[in-house]
């Protein structure tokens, strides 16, 4: 019905690619020629630059329909990718409300939400979904509220309960994750699920981040960018399916870097949820092929330098070690040694 949404795959024949417009709006995450952790949070304000991934609180792009089809495939094989502990029901409704309102306000052509008190009517045109339901009554929806709406919204989500001066991963959905498992992390607290991250604990990143997040206010969401790399445009790089994708890391050759190696940037946003005092953490992944990345000379230069100078612990943690050298060599021909401008290089 709409040619904006592409028909493509994130598995098997991997037909995913970005249009030139999608390349131009890619959230390139490096503001200097090297990378180290920081508590790099900023307000996730409405009305970012038109056309950018920051324009609306929830970004829906040309990959939406295929992305949601891939999510449904993952959930059909493994229902544990979506879980919510029993005390999280009011947080689930908070999530449904936030996502539906954001999507309907930002993209009225695609989504419509009519509300009369607790009687809600939701229309999702790209996915051909229409449902009437009673807000607060989970029996009136085909899935529990969080699963219902996140099957229709790009990005993985975790919902964090706040108690004992900590955050607890007590609900979520993860079908397009960079090698972490909701089924493993569910019920863990902030320090526990960040346990495996190297270097960052020592420099106090998580203590500061947690303190900041515990005070996160309603109506003042924040965001940060995180990144890793993925071989093939595969959304589901989960520990559960490591046997299917881990071996791809050995398949990178000097000839196929441009097509096979992807920069994977996560736009992560956090919202305080009003009814439950819980927090929504959205992890929206954007993939960019190396041959797409080098169409921007500033990105090409900078990414070459970032990847070359990355501390080995971080390269290991991000799973880049096996193909980092091949990628750095491939990128070298796009680095003319000129200085790159400081800042995020976003258009």
């Amino acid at each position, binding site marked *: 019905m709409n040619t904006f949404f592409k028909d493509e795959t994130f598995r098997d024949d991997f037909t995913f690619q970005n249009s030139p417009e999608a390349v131009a709006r890619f959230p390139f995450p490096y503001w200097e020629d090297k990378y180290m952790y920081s508590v790099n949070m900023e307000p996730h304000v409405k009305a970012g630059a038109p056309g950018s991934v920051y324009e609306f609180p929830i970004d829906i792009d040309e990959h939406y329909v295929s992305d949601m089809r891939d999510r449904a495939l993952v959930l059909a094989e493994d229902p544990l990718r979506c879980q919510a502990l029993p*005390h*999280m029901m*009011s947080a689930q409704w908070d999530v449904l409300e936030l996502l539906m309102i954001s999507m309907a306000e930002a993209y009225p052509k695609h989504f419509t939400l009519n509300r009369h008190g607790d009687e809600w009517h939701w229309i999702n045109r790209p996915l051909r979904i229409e449902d009437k339901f009673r807000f607060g009554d989970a029996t009136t929806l085909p899935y529990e509220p969080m699963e219902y709406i996140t099957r229709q919204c790009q990005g993985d989500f975790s919902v964090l*309960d*706040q*108690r*004992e001066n900590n955050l607890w991963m007590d609900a979520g959905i993860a079908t397009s994750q960079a090698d972490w498992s909701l089924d493993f992390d569910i019920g863990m607290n902030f320090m526990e699920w960040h346990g495996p991250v190297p270097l960052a604990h020592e420099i106090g990143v998580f203590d500061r981040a947690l*303190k900041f997040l515990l*005070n996160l*206010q*309603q*109506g*003042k969401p924040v965001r940060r960018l995180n990144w890793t790399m993925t071989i093939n445009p595969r959304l589901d790089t989960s520990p559960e399916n490591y046997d299917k994708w881990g071996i791809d890391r050995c398949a990178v050759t000097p000839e196929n870097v441009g097509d096979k190696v992807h920069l994977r940037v996560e736009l992560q946003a956090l919202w305080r949820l*009003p*009814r*439950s*005092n819980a927090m929504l953490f959205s992890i929206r992944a954007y993939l960019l092929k190396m041959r797409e990345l080098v169409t921007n000379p500033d990105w090409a230069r900078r990414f070459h330098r970032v990847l070359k100078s990355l501390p080995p612990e971080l390269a290991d943690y991000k799973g880049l070690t096996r193909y980092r050298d091949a990628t750095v060599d491939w990128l070298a021909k796009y680095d003319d040694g000129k200085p790159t401008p400081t800042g995020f290089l976003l258009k």
Partner: protein
Amino acid sequence: MTANMQRVRVARVDDVAAGIKRFELVGLAGQSLPMFSAGSHIVVTMRDKDQVWRNPYSIMGVSEDNGYVISVHSSPESRGGSRYMHTKVHVGSELDISEPVNLFPIVHTGRKHILIAGGIGITPMLAMLDELKRDASIFELHYAVRSPEAGAYFSDLMSETGRSIRVYSSDRGERIPLAAILSNQPLGTHVYVCGPQRMIDWALEVADRAGWPEENVHCERFSSAPPGKPFDVELRNGTVVHVGEHQSMLEALEHAGVDAPYLCRGGACGQCVTRVIASDSKLVHNDHYLTDEEKQAGEQIATCVSRADGGCIKLDL
């Protein structure tokens, strides 16, 4: 980080007990107010000529026209804010309020919840009561007042008295039998205390003696900034701001046009904690956020409730 503000109109004012008024606040022109979780407060900004006060008040519930309900106790020690609410705010008055902030939430994993309220400390408990009833949770509320006339919503709650709700009036010699209540509760029970400082201290001590784990005991401790000797604050750019006897440091900074961070304005959240670069007098810490060691070290101060004992302090602002 300062809070988002929203303008509201006072839709209704009621006297509910000696020195306590109940206010209903609604959005302007039918604008709806944000949802909130039980235990949340808002910071109300009050302006009178060139004076500005910002006080936190717990949201008690939702009015018939979807407004927020708060109660204000006009204390004799008021720095002006609650007296202003009592004398200058009427139906139709407009006020600015922050988004709701919750520093006193219900623990949703709790198997049972015991609410202990004293005096005006009943206000957050009324919202909690609504939520616990809605979720069909197991709970007890124990509410103590000096006398039925001085206790807001005392008679309302008295009519609900039963196994879950108990009221006590000290002029009748009644006291919350806290030791008995806390000595025999099922695993997974949480207790929440809101009231005068000495009641909170007493409840924490009784819970501790009964062997309660710290993480199951919760209290709402809003202090208002106590008065003290006047002093000066020097900022990084050399500006000197004078803090009067009855002013809080944060209020004086705001009055001088400094955009200082704050959230709860009651010494609970830590948002306003600022580095002290130098001080020529003793720091008087009145917050509940810094640890005893941090207070002793004297390198940080919560500008909302703490002050210097005269003299001048230099802040990293």
